């Protein structure tokens, strides 16, 4: 299973309960009040659900930046 950029943006926005339009390649946790430590947990949960628990999320070091999340997904070869 692979995820496209637009689906990842949608996943992050749903997890944070903000508009998808607000998410782009450069989005960072500092940009949104909703992207706090609890927001990070919501993103991790959504990624785990999306990949049905098959993604080793222990290897993701930080979930506070779209670029870092994409980098992790590319490393795991699940980013289109």
């Amino acid at each position, binding site marked *: 299973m692979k995820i496209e950029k637009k689906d990842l943006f949608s996943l992050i926005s749903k997890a944070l309960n903000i508009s998808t339009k607000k998410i782009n390649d450069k989005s960072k946790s500092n940009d949104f009040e909703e992207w706090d430590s609890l927001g990070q*947990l919501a993103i*991790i949960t959504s990624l*785990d659900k999306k990949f049905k*628990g098959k993604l*080793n999320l*222990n290897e993701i070091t930080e979930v506070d930046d779209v670029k870092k999340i994409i980098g992790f997904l590319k490393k795991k070869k699940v980013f289109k």
Partner: protein
Amino acid sequence: MSYAKIDEISYYLPPVNNLSKKNKILFNKIYKKTGILNTRISKKNEDVIDLAYSASLKIKKKLSNIEGVIFVTQTPRYLLPSCACILQDRLKLSKNIFAVDINMGCSGYIYGLSVAKSLIESNVLKKILLVCADTYSKYIDKNNNNKYLFSDAASATLISKSKNKKFGNFLFKTDGSKYEKIIIRKNKEGKQAFEMDGASVYTFTLMEIPKILERYLKKEKRSIKEMKKIFFHQASGIILDTLERKINKKKIVYKNIKNIGNTTSSSIPISIKDALNKKIIKKNDEILLCGFGVGLSWGVVSLKI
């Protein structure tokens, strides 16, 4: 052959913190994500010994012939002497007693049970008081959001000899490479302060806890269907919900975090006691206990309550 069993559990919680009343909007937002509506904070002049004493007093009548005190804490009154020694005196227990502290956090109850069981089953001691107590609030800065998660608490568990086998085997795991993920160390002001990398601890839990349960049940040749309830460490609502989703068996995970918060090593015994009181489980039911957290450290055991 000697066996060990849990005889009695009691606990003590300081009064409700009423954080929800102090900032309703913020707290409702936090509640949605953490599942915690209230935490418990000990008084300024109260510490783990006081909380442990209050928890133990509730089973005072059964403490007359205690031969050992195991005190699980990571927020002791002193670096030395151990809290177990101070509690022996405070409870006016016999001086002919084994007393030791175990420095473990959220997996501490599983560690305490394993030590108590081993001492009883190897005929070293007959009856042990296992106390878990922590006061993380003393180390959590007012600007640190972890104050919405953690509660101060103490539990007291009486473990004694049994004619029948009650405990399954124990399984433990440790990953010291992640020791900084949950830590109390000096901050910039030189004050001992609590720090937690919530996202890392969450991913660790999500990845490792389902694995250890699977490994344990396979090793023990047991099935999750044989368990009446699973008592996880009550870390947060989101963690308990995620573990329930991963296990894929509804209503098997016991949750009581809402008005109690994360009570570290006491969360499992508090949950068991609550479940017994509410008749959700009864004597001789088979249950699975799993503690995880600071270390990082995690452990699991099955037992007949």
